[in-house]
């Protein structure tokens, strides 16, 4: 194609409009590179079309450019701030959150431990209080026994073991005849077999009349191995027999462990 043919073909106008098929567009581009006249012609076509479009355009507001600029800058700024946020404040934030969580966990654990030890201490206190009460009770009992021993109203007797049944046994009796009160110390008696219990008898000699004073059993206990008995007939002697649990109405003489006079 000659220079004239290209210009007259109408391809340059179509090329500027963007309506030319790719192969013909390539042809035009080669011609533009080869002939400065074709280039010039193309520029003039473009210029007239551009001015035509400008004529049709309403007034252009300055804000449009400002918005475009903001839009393309925002894209940049977001990219930068993303990186920066990842680098510092985010890391500090997470680190702080982790430390904070750790602190809370530690404090919860401390509180829990303190609660536990408080509970243990409270339990210990209760146990100690109970022990104290027990000791106080024992002390009161012991003082009572001690008062008895020191009192002039009480006579003390050592009752020997029955030679036939328990030659080594003995029992001590503290007796207040006036008020009919007796404390019996059983330390010298052997431990009774299972299902058996010692029973104390008040004895009149002429004729021999036994009256039950009571059982050597916890309800009469008044201290370490010392039992208290009240309200029994004025005795001439005391006997202690081994009886079935619950005691008997009359003494089983074959199981007479202790026998001793108290009227001296």
């Amino acid at each position: 194609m000659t220079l004239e043919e290209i210009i007259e073909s109408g391809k340059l106008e179509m090329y500027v409009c963007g309506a030319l098929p790719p192969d013909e567009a390539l042809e035009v581009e080669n011609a533009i590179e080869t002939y400065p006249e074709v280039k010039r012609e193309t520029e003039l076509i473009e210029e007239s079309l551009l001015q035509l479009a400008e004529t049709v355009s309403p007034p252009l507001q300055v804000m449009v450019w400002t918005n475009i600029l903001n839009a393309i800058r925002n894209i940049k700024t977001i990219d930068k701030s993303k990186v920066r946020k990842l680098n510092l404040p985010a890391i500090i934030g997470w680190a702080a959150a982790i430390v904070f969580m750790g602190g809370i966990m530690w404090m919860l654990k401390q509180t829990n431990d303190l609660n536990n030890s408080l509970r243990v201490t409270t339990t210990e206190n209760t146990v100690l209080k109970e022990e104290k009460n027990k000791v106080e009770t024992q002390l009161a009992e012991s003082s009572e026994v001690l008062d008895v021993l020191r009192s002039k109203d009480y006579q003390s007797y050592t009752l020997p073991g029955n030679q036939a049944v328990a030659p080594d046994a003995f029992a001590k009796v503290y007796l207040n005849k006036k008020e009919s009160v007796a404390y019996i110390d059983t330390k010298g008696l052997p431990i009774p077999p299972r299902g058996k219990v010692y029973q104390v008898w008040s004895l009149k000699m002429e004729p021999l009349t036994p009256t039950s004073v009571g059982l050597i059993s916890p309800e009469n206990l008044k201290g370490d191995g010392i039992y208290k008995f009240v309200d029994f007939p004025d005795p001439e002697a005391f006997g202690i027999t081994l009886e079935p649990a619950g005691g008997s109405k009359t003494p089983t003489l074959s199981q007479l462990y202790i026998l001793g006079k108290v009227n001296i």
Partner: protein
Amino acid sequence: MEQPDDLIIAMQNGDEKAFSRLYSMYSQAIYGIIYSIVLDEKIAEELLQDVFIKVWNNAKTYSVNKGRFFTWLLNIARNTAIDATRSKAFKNSRKNLSTTNFVDILSSSDSLNKKTNAIGIKKFVNALKPACIKIIDLLYFKGYTQAEASKTLEIPLGTIKTRNRTCIKDLRVMILG
């Protein structure tokens, strides 16, 4: 006008100033193209923003050795505007788009842009033959291909190019003297 290849290459390398210069050279014409398609100033302004943001983001896809920069802009602008007219909301709000051309806009508009020769151009453009108005409207403003224009105007395919050349030649005389 010689194409400012230096500015285009600078913009492709992220130079905002070069982009700003290119914007002032081409934005008014591109705005005119978009407006001639959507016929609404607010919508056309928004689309013009979209077009130039696309230009900035896709600057590297243009090559100064292949095609005119103005033609590249034209294609982006026409595609963006035509896409917008296909949205449901747009279709519901207006009608008769296809029958309105650039001469109708020129005749009805009383707020032509500040260019000093606008009034003169208006007078000349009104003198364009109706057949020329049609063909320039389709090929230039609406982005029709040769074949599409041939079918719409019922002109043989071979005649389109020469008819278009004659019309633009008339236009050149009116505008550039």
